[in-house]
């Protein structure tokens, strides 16, 4: 679900910034540099999403651990190892999700991209 969400956001972002991509290509930016720009953005999105997910998840567990109905089945212990692992997966998800929009954006013809409204 996360990968689909980031892929959709990145596809929209690339579409909205088609002209900007055209400008970068027109002034000589290589396709791989444009791809990197979009991929870094996707990874940051994945990282921030992962961080927010951990915070909200931890908050929800804290809440559940205070409720008598769920007290016995919920644990709020959060190891650094799990946090790093979750963030790693989030960044990787961003990288995978951003790959196609980045490739597509970077390989647009400069002329077509500049004509985009």
């Amino acid at each position: 679900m996360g990968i689909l969400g980031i892929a959709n956001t990145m596809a929209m972002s690339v579409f909205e910034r088609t002209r900007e991509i055209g400008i970068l290509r027109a002034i000589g930016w290589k396709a791989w540099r444009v791809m990197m720009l979009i991929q870094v953005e996707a990874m940051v999105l994945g990282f921030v999403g992962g961080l927010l997910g951990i915070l909200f998840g931890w908050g929800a567990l804290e809440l559940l651990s205070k409720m008598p109905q769920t007290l016995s089945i919920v644990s709020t212990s959060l190891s650094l190892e799990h946090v790093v692992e979750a963030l790693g997966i989030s960044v990787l998800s961003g990288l995978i999700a951003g790959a196609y929009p980045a490739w597509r954006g970077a390989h647009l013809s400069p002329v077509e991209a500049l004509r985009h409204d």
Partner: protein
Amino acid sequence: MTSPQLKVPQLEVKDLRKSYDEGRIEALRGVSLSVEAGEYIAISGASGSGKSTLLQLLGGLDVPTTGEVLYEGSKLGSAVNLDEYRAQRLGFIFQAFYLLPTLNALENVQVPMLGLSGGSSSRASRAEALLREMGMGHRLKQYPNELSAGERQRVAIARALANNPAILLADEPTGNLDSVNSARIMEILTGIQEKRGMTLIIVTHENDIANAAPRHIRVRDGRIVE
């Protein structure tokens, strides 16, 4: 005895054709042209004549359907990498300026320099020097939406000069400007061409600008007519 060396034109176009929509629209129908280094050329023609398409092909922004564009004798797209050609040999100026809206004037001028040699401080100082040359020293930190049309075009000219190109291509550079700003921009462009010895090719539909150029090429229905 030494053999006479043949002078290779800076840019050469051979039987260039460009069609769209599966050949239904022919923008260029066999254009041949030779440009020497340091020339100042105006290309004029009615809307839809193919003049902007010709400039886009000269600038490596698009590829021809048939025919070829040669830069110093080497074919664009095969012997000459298009990205490197656009980044290091060319400066492009557009009618709609095409500045990046989220970057200020100083940052916009630095964008073409990213990834090429030089650190961030040398990029910034070169960008500042170019903007000062354009009379924009007092507007370095302004964003495009805070600049007038004439000022935006001056930032765009500074950006086009960022990597010290050999050729400056301008597609209707005064098309969005009033007469005062048009005159100022043309003064800057011709001044740059003279001072730096660059090749300047301007596409325009304005007769005054076209007739002022030492060489004037007229395009009609995808062909050069004179």
